[in-house]
């Protein structure tokens, strides 16, 4: 259960958003430039709100009133970026292992097998990111975020950089992820068809404000 109430001024643009999300997939839906990416950036700890409150379950990640600001690397919030952002100097296997490496935990071969199987990326492990197609890159990025064992997954337009064919190739993986892993997800998108296929709940963002919240029939 994620609760977000944040305010931030970004130049002439002002963001003032408040919403909650329970389990399943919550879509942040709205036009480009409406502040969706900034909102999840704040949830991840990559951007600092001017004021507000962010909590997952009972744990406060940010609270301007009490001065709490958990650094990004301690939040255990997975993030899949629009452009994947696989580390170019590391192989696919090392990219996937990065979160585990940083946490110092033991290797979890079972989970690795499960995730690489779910995403069909087991055959890519020895490749370098530069040798992947756009769709493969996004699947590896998704796997990398899942393997750090996050308590919440943020997806920032993960399909936006792909063409229609690639999109329809990857969308089923997200559906499987939703139904099999049951990890709460925030899915940022401006594409109504993606949102309809995935989301349980929709938060409409317009010009930095929450315009409406509701079920998928909202759009």
């Amino acid at each position: 259960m994620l609760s977000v109430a944040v305010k931030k001024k970004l130049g002439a643009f002002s963001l003032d958003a408040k919403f909650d999300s329970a389990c399943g997939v919550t879509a942040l839906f709205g036009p480009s430039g409406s502040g969706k990416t900034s909102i999840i950036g704040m949830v991840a700890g990559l951007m600092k709100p001017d004021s507000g409150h962010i909590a997952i379950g009972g744990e406060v990640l940010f609270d301007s009133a009490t001065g709490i600001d958990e650094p990004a690397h301690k939040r255990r919030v997975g993030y899949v970026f629009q452009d994947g952002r696989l580390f170019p100097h590391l192989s696919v296997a090392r990219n996937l292992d990065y979160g585990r490496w940083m946490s110092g935990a033991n290797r979890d071969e079972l989970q690795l097998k499960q995730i690489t199987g779910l995403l069909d990326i087991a055959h890519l492990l020895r490749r370098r990111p530069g040798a992947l197609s756009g769709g493969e890159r996004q699947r590896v990025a998704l796997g990398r975020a899942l393997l750090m064992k996050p308590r919440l997954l943020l997806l920032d337009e993960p399909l936006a950089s792909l063409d229609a064919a690639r999109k329809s190739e990857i969308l089923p993986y997200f559906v499987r992820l939703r139904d099999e892993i049951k990890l709460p997800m925030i899915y940022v998108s401006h594409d109504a068809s993606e949102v309809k296929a995935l989301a349980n709940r929709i938060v409409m963002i317009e010009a930095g404000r929450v315009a409406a919240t509701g079920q998928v029939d909202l759009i």
Partner: protein
Amino acid sequence: MFELSAEEWTAVALSLRVAAVSTAVALPFGIAIAWVLARKEFPGKAFLNAVIYLPLVLPPVVTGYLLLLAFGRKGFFGETLASIGVVFSFRWTGAALACGVMAFPLMVGAIRLSIEAVDRKFEDAAATLGANRMWIFLTVTLPLTLPGIIAGAVLAFARALGEFGATITFVSNIPGETQTISAAIYTLTQVPGGDSKALNLVIVAILISLVALVASEWFGRRAGARVHGV
């Protein structure tokens, strides 16, 4: 016939040692300073930048003289350092110090450019994966800076091999201790008939520089390919 005397071989070996040691010792400082200049804003940054680049524009003799004032036997730092057994004056270590100082701006410049070119998006990605700032630097920023670090190290090495003015001013021209290839060539050209002997050392200097440049090209290409993910 191409033949070097024992003394000339000593000069070649000394040059290589001075260049290698000065580059290796300067490198960690070069990376740290380059990172600070590339990433941090603070009062006095312009001044720090100017001080770092000063040896590039000052006459080398002036740099050597300043080193003599600071690190000479009676120098400001020299006296203190001598008391803990670190002596620079008229030693090869002093030659390495002079070369390191002269080469430092080139090294810092190359590494700084490379750090500025690192896409900080990768650092954000590493943070979301649980890496703190030190680990982000070690596992993301530093590897992505590697081509610049190699370029900076080779430039510094080459500059150290060619250093003459600051070294000879600071630690003189003592065969076997501070007489590098450059100083040996200079000495030979000062005696009648020495020019032809100097030619051998000149050829050695050219060979070393060529090998360094080819090696840096090769390493740089490999590191560059890695950075671009192929």
